[in-house]
């Protein structure tokens, strides 16, 4: 029964039985969207049979990799500028850009009771406050804007420590090396402990996160299907769970 030939036949059956249109897409994803992207990706694979490979990093880094012709089919950035630039530089398909989510920042501490509201920024003697690099990471830029709007930036300026991206910023706060910091709501939305103050969205420019189809994915049905899927209702529910706004309809 288990002769090499029957084994071969079995393998052939399995290969041929796979859905004829099942494809594969590689997607570069901004670090802050990691968990949501994994969940959306898994649901997408279950629904469509297409395989999705996700790579995570800072938007700026991913952009540099894409410019150096990294083999990605789609790009889910943490900002607008990256995908926009990808289009103007001819790295992405014109007209494929859309906002797939809007981010929120939250002032967070692992110590329960430390963060009470915006007054925490002025009333407590803060040793360090962690933000993402405001030049490369939109969440860091939003943090600076919020501090400026609250009129506390000048007093806090000397206490800022920068993570290269929002994931590292969370690391600083989570290990307690920075007593508090501005992190992405998506990073703490499923975490019960600590203390937090979700920063009202009118204190900073919206953190619109854009997606774009890259040149390499132009003829990849799996990549196109994934970008459609991420706009859909199922993906929207997941985004909401992780603390993101829905983006473009």
């Amino acid at each position, binding site marked *: 029964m288990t002769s090499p030939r029957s084994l071969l036949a079995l393998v052939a059956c399995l290969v041929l039985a796979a859905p004829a249109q099942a494809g594969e897409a590689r997607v570069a994803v901004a670090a802050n969207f990691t968990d949501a992207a994994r969940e959306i990706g898994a649901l997408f694979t279950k629904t469509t049979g297409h395989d999705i490979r996700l790579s995570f990093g*800072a938007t*700026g*880094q991913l952009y*540099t990799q894409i410019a150096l012709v990294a083999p990605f089919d789609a790009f889910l950035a943490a900002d607008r500028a990256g995908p926009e630039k990808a289009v103007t530089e001819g790295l992405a398909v014109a007209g494929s850009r859309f906002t797939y989510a809007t981010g929120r920042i939250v002032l967070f501490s692992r110590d329960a009771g430390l963060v009470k509201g915006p007054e925490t920024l002025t009333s407590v003697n803060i*040793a*360090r406050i*962690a933000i993402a*690099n405001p*030049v*490369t990471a939109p969440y860091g830029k939003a943090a600076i804007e919020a501090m400026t709007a609250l009129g506390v930036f000048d007093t806090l300026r000397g206490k*800022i*420590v*920068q*993570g*290269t991206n929002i994931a*590292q910023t969370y*690391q*600083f706060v989570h*290990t*307690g*090396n*920075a*007593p508090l910091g501005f992190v992405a709501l998506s990073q703490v939305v499923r975490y019960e402990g600590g203390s937090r103050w979700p920063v009202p969205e009118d204190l900073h420019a919206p953190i619109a996160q854009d997606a774009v189809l890259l040149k390499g994915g132009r003829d990849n049905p799996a990549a196109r299907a994934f970008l459609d899927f991420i706009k859909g209702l199922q993906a929207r529910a997941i985004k909401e769970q992780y603390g993101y706004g829905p983006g473009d309809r």
Partner: protein
Amino acid sequence: MPDLALLWPPVRLTLELAAVTTLVLLVVATPIAWWLARAQARWKEGVAAVVALPLVLPPTVLGFYLLILLGPDGPGGWLARAFGSTSLAFTFEGLVIGSVVYSLPFVVQPVRNAFEAVGNAPLEAAASLRASPWDRFWSVAVPLARPGFLTGAILSFAHTVGEFGVVLMIGGSIPGETRVLSIAIYEQVETLAYTEAHILSAGLLAFAFAVLLAVFALNRRFAFRVTGA
């Protein structure tokens, strides 16, 4: 033309960090190297392996552990509380600790080799002249092992200048305090400030070449002296 004055602070900080790290390492590594060279203990190679770990471990692993050790849950936080803070991360002192760990094998190894090359004979001769162990160490072993110290010092200085991953994970990129050369270059490349990145990178390249040239020249001179003896 980029503002050259802005490029100087990370260079100065890096040189300071490398100098302090090298001094601390010479103090920390010498007794370890001496013990590794002279001790008969069977488990000494276990200690040698621990010392050499930073050679093999990715800086991310070192940086991750250091972040925890320097923080409020680790000994670093305990130490920091003595100075009214809660963490040693994001401080110059924290970077020195990280750099000492990271460059430890680069000093221990050459110094240990040099001590082993000295051998027993000169030390026994000194002992027969009634030199105390302390005197034998300072007047005989250390001068004879000088090339090893020099190699170790140059390597640790250079290795600290070139350090990136560990500093990235425990530094927090504070200008003048933890934003060292490699981090400044990384951020310049990230923000597409290629001119500045070119200036600093080319400088680092020339520096690295000069250092390696010095080490190789030193090794050659030392080798000649040994064979010519």
